[in-house]
């Protein structure tokens, strides 16, 4: 017996005890597909025959079934299901999950069942139970269809059971196997001329009266073919021909269903332009009208195409409805979702499902006419109101481009002006908390699976909420950077030889050493125009750029300073023709902003300066007391010890003072960009650092504005002793006078050895500078030997993950990914930054 069921459905086994449901289910379905009541009884009570726990067992069983269906998995319920009340649960769940319910009934003769029951070792039921079951079953069978089972299969003999064949059918909407490029065309509403113009613009040619594409592209019509426009019948003819000849797909719109109702002789109001269509149709033959009705009747509510990557539906589709079939899903496809309220134009108020859409599939839909294509979260509304004098738009797949032709005229006055921005429908990109709580898994190109612990996500949520700038600006956060391995040289904690050695071992021939500016990390984003900030970034607060810290917080409390610095950046970029040459109107830079004292005021005043204040005054007194004592008693050892301490604290003060100066005007700031991160269509993460340095010099730090500084650098060949020596000498030179040190990077921004991602940079800090990190006296041998015991593994692993996430965020932004996908990357960086790692590394 052939048992045909949809590949995603909920199947109820129905049959008396001893009818062999379990062995049937196990024979024809995967073990994980079958949820057996016996199994769940055992799970909750250790006894599969314990009927007292049935309630618990079924609760658990249905919970599991629901999760399976949510995940799109066929599910078989292996229980007797003899009572209508039991079957109602099956049907309710199927309805809730928008899947079909199927019943497979094992209707064996009573004699066989009794025989089997007796043969059971310890589970023989009284005969009357079996008999009762048989009666119940007889009574049930004829009602199953009426109860709501879409598919009912009754197996009346052992032979039926043995020779059953389960055939899993695809749903009508499943066209995942269609991989042809597609041109999805929005609401036509009888605008035949524009439709023809658009098809021709897309490259379709009329051959034998049918439009077809020479490259085999398919058209896909989003419904609402008729009403309001002036050539409704022509549109219908064109569409029907294309669909029938396999050159197009079509899904129905709400107008089409209303027309169908009319054609079937039902009472409908001839409003919203239906009157025009009907007037035209009345000129056609009865046959044609029947043909139209037949065509509309067969339309499938939505299609899932190209391996599930593309979904088309007239009014869009929630993620959980994709690929499902039910009245509810069909209604959504036709009408969308409304609140039941009316707006000031008497139009229904719509729920903004697209704002909450988080699916991977691209959903293209129409239904709501707006002046421009609305793209949010992988959904595209391409009804651009042709009939209202707007334009007719096609969405090209897989190119994801929109191509339009303008309407020749306004055929019908719009109820609501096309260009009115509905507040509720804009800003569909508000972030939703659920995606950032709990344990998170992120996928990046550089590292495929990155896991974030729940407590770190919670910490990041707090930082984001309390301090971060508008998430629209946060398209990147810089990674943490690990120091080089602890030096084995006696008087050093860090030394560049270790950094050269690391990259040499990893097969990197050339590294670039960049002077480490002692300032604060600053990410700068600048849009050439205000319009770019609004359209490209979705920032509508009147700023056209931002400078933010490594934790995503606005760098300056005073917006005026930020604006002046950004304007100066714009001036220098414009002067150097950056915008034209890079063909962009925005830029994202990674930079160091000085003086350090500007951002670190609190730290300086509460920690750094007090240590030197207390140290210098105490040690002066101590040395004085010891010197006096020396007149009477030999105490040179102690005296020298405290004189050394005094020298150390003086050196320490000297180290931090290097990085402090008072800012009187914006001219006193210094900005040293070191990565040109991204601009329109490009992320520069594959370029060499020399490329970055040169472009920064040419376009920004060209000397024309003293605020923008170049970063001195030196290229070192890790295989040549001389070159390494030069690198070491350069570092000694930089740090001898208290400089922070240098950053050593592989030649190319993203460096790998085979599949291993290498540290994008390691830092090597100066001996004097490190007093600011490890205290004034850290170089004393007793201290240094302990400090050398430090582990970098954790820091290094964080650096890599944060690097991968930061670059991923940029790529996603450049590829126009939805905000929530960009945000999860920068959120991830912040989460990792909340991990407790020695902050001195």
């Amino acid at each position, binding site marked *: 017996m052939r048992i045909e069921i949809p590949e995603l459905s909920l199947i109820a086994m129905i049959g008396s005890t001893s009818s062999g449901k379990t062995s049937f289910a196990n024979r024809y379905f995967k073990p994980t597909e079958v949820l057996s009541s016996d199994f769940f009884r055992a799970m909750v009570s250790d006894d599969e025959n314990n009927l007292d726990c049935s309630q618990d067992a079924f609760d658990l069983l249905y919970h599991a079934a629901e999760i399976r269906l949510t995940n799109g998995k066929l599910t078989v319920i292996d229980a007797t299901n003899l009572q209508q009340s039991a079957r109602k649960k099956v049907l309710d769940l199927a309805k809730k999950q928008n899947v079909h319910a199927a019943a497979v009934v094992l209707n064996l003769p009573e004699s066989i069942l009794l025989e089997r029951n007796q043969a059971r070792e310890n589970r023989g039921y009284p005969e009357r139970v079996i008999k009762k079951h048989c009666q119940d079953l007889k009574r049930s069978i004829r009602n199953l269809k009426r109860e709501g089972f879409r598919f009912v299969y009754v197996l009346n003999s052992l032979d039926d059971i043995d020779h059953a064949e389960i055939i899993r059918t695809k749903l009508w909407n499943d066209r995942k196997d269609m991989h042809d490029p597609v041109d999805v065309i929005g609401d036509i509403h009888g605008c035949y001329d524009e439709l023809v113009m658009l098809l021709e613009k897309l490259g379709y040619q009329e051959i034998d009266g049918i439009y077809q594409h020479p490259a085999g592209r398919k058209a896909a019509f989003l419904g609402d073919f008729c009403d309001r426009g002036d050539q409704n019948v022509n549109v219908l003819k064109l569409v029907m021909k294309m669909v029938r000849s396999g050159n197009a797909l079509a899904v129905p719109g709400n107008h089409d269903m209303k027309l169908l109702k009319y054609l079937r002789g039902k009472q409908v109001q001839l409003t919203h332009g239906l009157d025009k269509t009907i007037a035209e149709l009345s000129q056609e033959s009865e046959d044609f009208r029947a043909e139209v009705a037949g065509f509309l009747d067969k339309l499938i509510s939505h299609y899932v195409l190209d391996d599930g990557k593309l979904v088309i539906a007239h009014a869009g589709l929630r993620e959980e409805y994709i690929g499902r079939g039910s009245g509810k899903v069909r209604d959504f496809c036709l009408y969308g979702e409304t609140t039941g309220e009316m707006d000031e134009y008497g139009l229904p108020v719509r729920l903004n499902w697209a704002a909450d859409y988080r699916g991977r599939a691209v959903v293209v839909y129409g239904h709501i006419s707006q002046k421009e294509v609305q793209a949010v979260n992988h959904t595209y509304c391409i009804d651009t109101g042709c009939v209202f004098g707007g334009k007719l738009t096609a969405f090209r797949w897989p190119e994801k481009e929109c191509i339009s032709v303008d309407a020749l005229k306004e055929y019908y006055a719009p109820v609501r002006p096309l260009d009115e921005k509905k507040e509720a429908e804009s800003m569909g990109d*508000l972030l939703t908390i659920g995606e950032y709580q709990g344990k998170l898994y992120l996928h990046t190109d550089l590292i495929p699976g990155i896991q974030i612990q729940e407590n770190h996500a*919670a910490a990041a949520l707090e930082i984001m909420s309390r301090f971060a700038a508008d998430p629209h600006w946060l398209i990147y956060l810089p990674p943490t950077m690990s120091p080089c391995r602890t030096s084995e040289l006696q008087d050093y904690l860090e030394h560049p030889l270790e950094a050269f050695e690391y990259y040499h071992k990893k097969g990197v021939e050339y590294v670039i050493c960049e002077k480490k500016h002692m300032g604060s990390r600053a990410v700068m984003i600048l849009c050439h125009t205000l319009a770019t900030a609004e359209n490209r970034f979705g920032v509508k607060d009147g700023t056209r750029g931002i400078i933010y810290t490594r934790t995503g917080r606005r760098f300056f409390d005073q917006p005026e300073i930020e604006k002046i610095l950004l304007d100066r950046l714009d001036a220098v970029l414009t002067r150097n023709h950056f915008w034209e040459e890079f063909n962009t109107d925005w830029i994202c830079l990674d930079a160091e902003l000085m003086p350090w004292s500007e951002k670190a005021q609190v730290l300086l005043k509460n*920690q750094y300066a007090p240590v030197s*204040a*207390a*140290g210098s005054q*105490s040690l002066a007194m101590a040395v004085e*007391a*010891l010197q006096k004592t020396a007149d009477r008693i030999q105490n040179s050892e102690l005296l020298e010890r405290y004189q050394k301490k005094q020298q150390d604290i003086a050196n320490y003060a000297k180290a931090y003072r290097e990085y402090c100066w008072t800012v009187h005007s914006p001219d006193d700031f210094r900005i040293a960009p070191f990565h040109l991160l991204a601009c329109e269509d490009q992320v520069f993460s594959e370029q060499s650092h020399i490329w970055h340095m040169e472009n920064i010099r040419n376009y920004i730090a060209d000397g024309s504005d003293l605020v923008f500084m170049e970063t001195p650098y030196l290229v070192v060949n890790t295989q040549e002793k001389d070159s390494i020596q030069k690198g070491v000498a350069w570092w000694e030179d930089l740090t001898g006078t208290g400089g922070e040190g240098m950053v050593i990077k592989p030649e190319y921004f993203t460096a790998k050895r085979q599949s291993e991602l290498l540290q994008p940079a390691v830092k090597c800090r100066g001996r004097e500078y490190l007093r600011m990190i490890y*205290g004034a006296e850290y170089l004393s041998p007793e201290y240094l030997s302990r400090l050398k015991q430090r582990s970098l593994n954790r820091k290094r692993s964080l650096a890599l993950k944060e690097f991968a996430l930061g670059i991923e965020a940029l790529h996603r932004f450049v590829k126009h990914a939805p905000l929530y996908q960009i945000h999860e990357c920068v959120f991830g960086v912040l989460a990792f930054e909340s991990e407790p790692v020695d902050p001195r590394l």
Partner: protein
Amino acid sequence: MLLTITYQGEHTQELGYLLYKHPDKIQTFELSYGKAHVFYPEVSEQKTMAALLLDLNAIELARGKAGSKEGGLFDYVNDRPYVSSSFMSNALTRVFGTAMSGRCDERPELAEKKLHLTACISALYDGGNPSLAEECFAPLGYEVHTERNLLDPMFPEWGESPYINLTISGEVRLSDLLNHLYVLIPAFDRQKHYYVSEDEIDKLLSHSESWLADHPAKEKIIHRYFYQRKSYAHKAIDRLLETEPLSVTESEESEPTEQKKSLNQQRLEAVKQAVLESGASSVIDLGCGECRLTSMLLDEKQIQKVTACDVSVRELEKAMQRLHYDRMPAYRKQKLTLMQASLTYKDHRFSGYDCACVIEVIEHLEPLRIPAFERILFEFAAPRTVILTTPNREYNCNYEFLPAEQLRHEDHRFEWTRNEFQTWTDHICNAFGYTCELQEIGEIDPQYGAPTQMGVFTKCG
């Protein structure tokens, strides 16, 4: 880090007997985090100076003892090695313990006698409070002299250093001087290098019984000595003054003034009243902090459900302790939900409440994030009633401690004037279909209004 004690008079070398330390030796003692050196910079008939010099192991302070896994108590970059703090008191008992007890077998009469003594302490932290030293030592009969430098002479604009070098001199028994120092040095510095337990009360009292009860600044001294352990401070004061203990909760806000406390109370009362008047039976407290409002609402019969949200998990954990969540009776507990949530992320869990309270929260949001907050609360959660309070900036001129133009809390991103608040509430009403009633909370200044302003929003229709 350095304490010198100078004895002036006749046969001052006898200081050596009193201290049990030979004037011609340099002696070194092991301490828990380093060493203490004792030596005499000056020895003569008329004047003898003894010095106690600390030599703390900075690396152990930062990393913990060698070989221990516990880690250090302090940052590497730290003033601890250089200041006079609890480490100094600790060293005093360790090195001069006998002298402190007043015992001197060789010169018992000298130990009992008031001598002309001068103590000099280097780098004592007073946080820039110019009168603290005088307040603490003058009532004990000392002449007080302090010396203060700039925080950093290279950057005069950073202001003065929070440390003084202190010199006190007077006619005093050596043991009294040492006990005074023992108690008062940590009262200046406040940070302690060890875990402060209740034993600390005994320790304090045993060194101060004879003199602290009559000290005019005793409460201040004890509070500073215990710093964040307010309950210990109160117990110590009670025991010192032999009064009945007052019940005190541990987690009072730090140094609340009477006025601030009562304002907070008034605010909560006003909010509670507004909640009750709105007829709400379910309330979401957005930015619940320590859950003071939440706990008041749980006491109300009308309120059947309270959800308290905060963006800080730490704050929520503190709130749970404060509410005794673990031991809460089942009936009360089922009314309460605590959850981490953010006001700048859309959250379906905010829906379905009659009333939302946003008490002293909005001023902690970045101004540019407020549009998102508005939509999340008024458009998506859209409760029938929203009660929101925020400071009235105009009133700030009444706070003496607040410099002009400064906000009341360092995390406040802005504070609104009455006008600005009303402009905002009007905008909310227009954009989201609410009406709003404004209310003032706290003492009303005729010109500048009340310290807190409250808006009670009601959804139209």
